[in-house]
C-alpha cells in the first residue's frame, strides 16, 4: 500500500470503500432487509467522512461536522425504524421479503 499523503485521505478512502461495499450490498442482495442494512452502511460511511473532515478541517471548535454527524445518526435511526416497519408490513401482505417479487409498482 502506498503511503498516503495525509491522514485525511486515508479516512476518506476508507469511508469511500465502506460506502461502495454498502452500495454493493444494497444493489446485489435479494432480501429487502439487506438493502436497508446496506443503506445503513452507506450512512455510516458518510458519517465517517463528516467526522474526518471535522477533525482535520480548519475550525473544529465550530462543531459543525460533529453536529452534522450526530443529526445524521438520529435521522438514520428514524429512517431505519420506518423502513423496517415497512418491510414488516409488506411481508405481512405478500409473505415474502424478496425484492424481485415485490414489483406492484411495475409499469
Amino acid at each position, binding site marked *: 500500500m502506498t503511503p498516503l499523503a495525509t491522514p485525511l485521505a486515508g479516512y476518506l478512502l476508507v469511508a469511500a470503500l465502506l460506502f461502495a461495499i454498502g*452500495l454493493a450490498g*444494497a*444493489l446485489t442482495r435479494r432480501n*429487502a432487509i439487506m*438493502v436497508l442494512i446496506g443503506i445503513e452502511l452507506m450512512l455510516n460511511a458518510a458519517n465517517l467522512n463528516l467526522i474526518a473532515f471535522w477533525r482535520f478541517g480548519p475550525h473544529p471548535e465550530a462543531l459543525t461536522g460533529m453536529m452534522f454527524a450526530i443529526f445524521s445518526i438520529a435521522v438514520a435511526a428514524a429512517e431505519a425504524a420506518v423502513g423496517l416497519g415497512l418491510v414488516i408490513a409488506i411481508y405481512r401482505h405478500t409473505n415474502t421479503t424478496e*425484492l*424481485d417479487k*415485490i*414489483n*406492484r*409498482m*411495475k*409499469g
Partner: protein
Amino acid sequence: MQGAISFHPDSALSAIAQILWLIPAAPIVASGLIAMLKQPRRKAAATLAIGSLAFSLLLSLIAFGHVLSGWAHGAVVREVVNFTWFHFGSAHVDLGWVLDPLAAIMLVMVSFVGLLIFIYSVGYMAHDENFTRFFCFMSLFAGAMLGVVISNSLLLLFMFWEIVGLTSYLLIGFWYQKPSAAAAAKKAFITTRVGDIFFFLGIVWLFSQTGTLVLYKGGGGAIEPAALARLLSQHAGLGLSAAGAIGLLIFAGAVGKSGQLPLHVWLPDAMEGPTPVSALIHAATMVAAGVFLVTRMYPLMQIGAHPGGTTVALTVVTWVGASTAVFAALIAVAQNDIKRILAYSTISQLGYMMAGLGLGGVAVGMFHLITHAFFKSLLFLGAGSVIHGCHEEQDIRRMGGLKVDMPLTFITYAFGMLALCGFPLFFSGFWSKDGILEAAQHWDVSKAPLVMLVVGALLTAFYMTRQVCYVFFGYWRGQKVAHESPKVMTLPLVILAFFAMALGLIGTPAWPWFHAFLENRGVKFNLHGFAEPGLGLLMLASSLVVFLGLGIGWWLYGNKSPEPEEPDALEKSAPWLWAGLRDRLYVDELYGVTVIAFYAWWARVADWLDRRVWGGIVAAVAWLFGLWAQLNRLLDVYWVDGGFDKTCEELSSSGGLLARVESGRVQNYLRILAAAVVALAAVLLWSSRP
C-alpha cells in the same frame, strides 16, 4: 297577278289573320285534354274533339270569307304574321303563319272533311274500347294538319309535318296488339322518314343560301323574288340551279308523304288502321300534304322557267306523278281487299295531282286535290260502312248483293266511284281530271304523260267497276247477313256525296272560279270557255275512255259473283300478269333484297363491331382498371397499411421496452440512481481537474 299590294283595309292585319293560330291550336289543346281523360269517358272525348274541330271550321269559314271578299275586291290577299322564336348569335329563327287563298281553301277542306269523319267515327268506333285514345290522336292530327296549312315558315311547317307523321304512325298502329298493324305503322314512319331526310336537307340548304326560312316576309322571304333570284343564280351541279336542287329535295319529302313511286310502299299497309283513319289521313289530308307542300313551294320550283316552258324540278315532278298514276292503277286491278283497292287508287290519284302541278300549275293540281279529298273520303267511309255492315269482313270476294241490303251506302258509294272515274259532266272528278289532261296535252316536253294519264283513267274506271260489281252486285257470299249502318255513319256519306258532285261546278272551263281564286285574278261565267281549241275533243276522248273502262269492267264482272276460291276472270286469261299485279309488282320484295338486306348486314357488322371491338376495348380498359385496383390494393395493404402497422408495432414494442424501465423493482431503480450519480460526479470531476 293583279296588284302586288297585300290586302290592308286600313294598313293593319285583319282580326281573323291575327287569331288564325287558334285554328290549329284548338284541336291540339283538345287532344291534350282528351289525353288526360280516362278511357270510359267517351262522350266527353268525342264532344271535345268534334267541338274543337267545329270551332276550327267556323274560324276557317270566317277566314275563307275574308279572303273571298278580298279577292272579290280585286286585291292580292296574303296576310302574314311573323314572330321571332329564338336568337342564336346574330341570326334568329322566325316562325309565322299566312292567310292567302291557298291556305283558306285548305283550311276549309281539312276542317270540314275532318269534322264529317269525326262524326262518322263516333258510330264506327262505338264498339272499340280505346275510343278516347282514338279521338285524342285524331284531334292531334287535325290540329297538326291545320298547322301545316297555315305555316309561313318552312321550319314550323316541318315541325307540324313531323307531328302529322307521328299521329299517322300512332293511328295506323292503333290496334297495336296486331303484329301486322305494328309493322305497318313502323313501315309508314320509316318510309316517310326517308323522304323527310331529303326534305330537311332542302330546308338546311335553303336556310344557308337565303338566311331565312320564312316564306313571305314583305319582300325578304325565302320564296319571294329577291331570294329566288339569288338561288337561281347559284349552280348546284348536274345542270341544276340551287333553286332547282332545293326544289327537288323538298319534292323528295312530298314523295314520301304522298306515296309517290319509290316511297309508296307504306300506303297500302297503312290500311291496317281503322277506316276513319284511312279516310282522313290516307285519302283526304295527310297524303295531300305532300301535294300542298309542292304547291306552297311552287315559286321555288317554277323560277327559271322560260315563258311557256318548264323547269327541271317541275319536269321531274310530272314524270314521277304520271308514272305513279299508271303503276298504282295497274296494281289496284288485282287486289281483293276493299281498302287496298282504294289505297292504290289514292296513290294513283296523288300521282295525278303531282302531274297536274308539274304540267299545269298550282290551280290544276289543287283542284284535283280538293275534289279527290271529298270523293275519296266518301269512298273510304263507304267502305267502312260496308265493312261494318258485313261484320268486319274486308275481302270483296266474300261480299256481294249489298245494293239490296245497304242501299244508302250503295248510292253514296256509287256517287263517289263515278266521281273518281271521272264520269262526265255531273261529277267533280271529271272536271278536275280533265284539267290535268288538258295541261298534259299542252305540255311541250313530251306527250308521254298524256298517254300515261289516259291509260290510268281507263284502269281507274276498270278497277272501280270491278270493285263495285264484286261488292254491291251479284249475290251475297258472306257468312252472316249484312245490315245497313246507323245514321251517324250514313249522314256524312250523304253530305260528302253532295259535294262530290257539286264541287265540279267551281272548276269548269266555263266558270273556272277555283283557278281564278287561287291565282288571284278575276273570273266571269263564260260558256265560250268551252270553245278552246282541242278542249272539246279532249272532253269527248276522256268520256269515251271512262265509258270503255266501265263497260269492260261490267262485261267481265257484271252480276256474276264468282266464289272466293275461283280465280278472277282476268286471272284466267293472263295468270302470270295477274300474279305480278296482285303481288304489287314486287316493289316490296325489291326493297327487301336491297335496302333491308343491306341494313340487316350493316346491323350485323355494327353488332360485331360493338361486341368485339368496342366491347373488347371496354373489357380491356376494365381489366386495366382491375389491375390498377389490385396494384393499389397491394400498395395499400403492404406499403401504407404495412408501414403504418409496422410503425405502430415499433411504437408498441418500444413502449414495451420503455415500460420495462418501470420494473417496479426497487433495486433496479437504486442501481440506476447510483449509476447516474457516478456519471454526474465523473463529469464534474473531469471538468474541474487542475
